[in-house]
């Protein structure tokens, strides 16, 4: 049917020219062809080369094929050209003058096709018009064939191009485009397992890493608007420059999703703040490691765990974000155990220690809010920690009693007389928090009570640098003088953990004011 009509139009194109309305569409869509319409001298097929992208697995493409055949026939007669690129099965375009198998999607990528069918008109190699999906009037306008597709529906939306299949855009970018990635390419030896290659290269913390392919790294970089070559800072111990791209590579290896990137980048930046003293945390013989705590809406948005098993396994964001920071230090900074990392025991926390503070109960303000950040701000706090030590108290129902339980445990950190270079975060789980809530105690009140209980008689303070050396002559003048457990260390309280069970937990660490301190940075 279409072919017959097409033939008539080819012979007498002007006689079949219809309404003013059509001409107005033509004028709008084919500016340079409009004069031809007015003079009735236009060719049956608009000048130029046509390129169509289709796939058999697309009902709209199937619907539009007769129209494409009509264009092909007219092109053959008028010296024009129609190339039909088929994304799945090239036999779909059997019989066309110029059918092309584009299952590798090279042409589709080159022309940035996101929908099929797409029809493009080129003039002197330059694209001058394209139509997407099937809209009869548009196809008529771009081809200049007035009755093209008569009898077909006026409009059918197209289908997704195979270039848009899940994971395909980055694959095509790596295959045909310019990724802009600057990192050295490492070729996995033939027949080798890429995961084993990562081990052999020394990139792993001991657990398998996700092989950082260009495709995965590109996807990871989609999680940030920051330029891949932006320098985040210099990572100790080698103080090597670390770019956003290097962070993304390590984030891939650690198991991150792209949406974790803002947290990951801020965590790296925070860990590099001078007050945190990352070099010291890494190099010390102690067990401490950077602990990552996230506050604010982003923690909920990316599904971080603040509740049951909060410091444990099983949550991807918690695990992967903390692990990324460790891998960045290892791989970019060159901080490896047995080398600059001189820890005697280390800690499981050195694989990853990352969590969100539980902000669901408004009765206590979050750590970040207590620092002056808005509840709507998302922040990353980095503090040193060895791991956790649990406090069990199923009995106390009064805040004073609970604080006495806490104080006994906290006092024992590194030794009951150890007061210099010791600090801690105390994580209070919900059932314990309720004791304080019910009594109307704020976080600050609990902290004050504990600091009071944690005053230690000088006679019980340890000799040497853990204690007595750090005291003034006046403090040492009377063995009954009281000195604080956290003589130069920080002490903070946070809310975290499961809702069933009367527990709290201490996260102890070395360090203190002026050496290794908690730092907080807003995610922007």
């Amino acid at each position, binding site marked *: 049917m279409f072919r017959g009509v097409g033939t008539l139009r080819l012979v007498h194109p002007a006689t079949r020219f219809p309404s003013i309305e059509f001409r107005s569409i033509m004028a709008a869509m084919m500016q340079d062809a409009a004069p031809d319409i007015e003079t009735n001298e236009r060719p049956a097929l608009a000048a130029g080369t046509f390129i169509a992208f289709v796939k058999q697995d697309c009902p709209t493409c199937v619907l539009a094929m007769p129209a494409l055949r009509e264009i092909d026939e007219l092109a053959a007669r008028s010296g024009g050209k129609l190339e039909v690129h088929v994304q799945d099965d090239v036999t779909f375009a059997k019989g066309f003058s110029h059918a092309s198998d584009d299952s590798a999607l090279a042409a589709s990528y080159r022309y940035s096709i996101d929908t099929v069918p797409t029809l493009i008109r080129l003039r002197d190699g330059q694209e001058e018009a394209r139509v997407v999906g099937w809209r009869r009037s548009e196809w008529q306008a771009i081809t200049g064939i007035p009755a093209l597709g008569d009898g077909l529906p006026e409009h059918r939306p197209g289908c997704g191009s195979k270039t848009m299949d899940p994971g395909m855009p980055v694959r095509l970018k790596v295959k045909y485009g310019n990724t802009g990635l600057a*990192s050295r*390419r490492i070729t*996995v030896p033939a027949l080798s397992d890429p995961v084993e290659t990562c081990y052999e290269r020394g990139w792993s913390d001991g657990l398998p890493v996700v092989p950082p392919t260009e*495709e995965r790294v590109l996807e990871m970089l989609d999680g940030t608007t920051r330029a891949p070559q932006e320098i985040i800072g210099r990572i100790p111990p080698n103080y*090597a420059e670390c770019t956003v791209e290097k962070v993304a*590579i390590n984030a891939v290896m650690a198991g991150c999703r792209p949406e974790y990137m803002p947290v990951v980048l801020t965590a790296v930046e925070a860990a590099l703040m001078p007050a945190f003293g990352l070099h010291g945390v890494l190099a010390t013989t102690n067990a401490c490691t950077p602990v990552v705590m996230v506050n604010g809406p982003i923690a909920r948005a990316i599904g971080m765990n603040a509740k049951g098993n909060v410091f444990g396994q099983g949550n991807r964001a918690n695990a992967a974000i903390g692990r990324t920071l460790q891998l960045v230090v290892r791989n*970019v900074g060159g901080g490896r155990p047995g080398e600059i990392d001189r820890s005697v025991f280390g800690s499981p926390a050195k694989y990853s220690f990352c969590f969100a503070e539980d902000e669901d109960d408004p009765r206590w303000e979050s750590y970040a809010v207590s620092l002056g950040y808005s509840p709507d701000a998302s922040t990353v706090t980095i503090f040193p920690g060895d791991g956790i030590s649990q406090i069990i108290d199923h009995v106390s129902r009064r805040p004073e009693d609970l604080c006495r339980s806490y104080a006994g445990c906290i006092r024992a950190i590194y030794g009951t007389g150890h007061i210099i270079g010791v600090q801690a975060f105390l994580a209070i789980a919900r059932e314990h928090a309720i004791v304080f809530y019910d009594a109307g105690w704020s976080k600050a009140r609990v902290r004050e009570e504990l600091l009071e209980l944690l005053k230690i008689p000088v006679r019980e303070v340890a000799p040497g640098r853990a204690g007595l050396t750090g005291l003034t002559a006046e403090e040492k003048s009377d063995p009954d003088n009281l000195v604080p457990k956290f003589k130069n260390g920080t002490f903070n309280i946070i809310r975290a953990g499961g809702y069933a069970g009367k527990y709290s937990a201490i996260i102890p660490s070395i360090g203190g004011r*002026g*050496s290794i301190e908690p730092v907080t940075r807003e995610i922007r």
Partner: protein
Amino acid sequence: MPENILLDPTAETAPAMQPRLVRPQSIAGKTIGLLDIAKMRGDEFLDRLDELLTGRGHVVKRYRKKHFAHLAPLELKQQIKSECDLVVEGLAD
């Protein structure tokens, strides 16, 4: 997804190995800096060195970092470099 090409997660340019400065044949006439990194009892070791060196007529200058967990600031390194010919640094406890 093909996994035969990986991106290097490291700094790639590990700090270039720098040759050690040539050691002097003698310390005679040299100004010797003693850098205390602020680790416990490092001062005892350096005090003794100071005593021995000064006793033999050498010029000794003393320096101290604020805290051992942090690198020596650039200003301190420049000061030592400009004031001394040699430096002894007391590491660890």
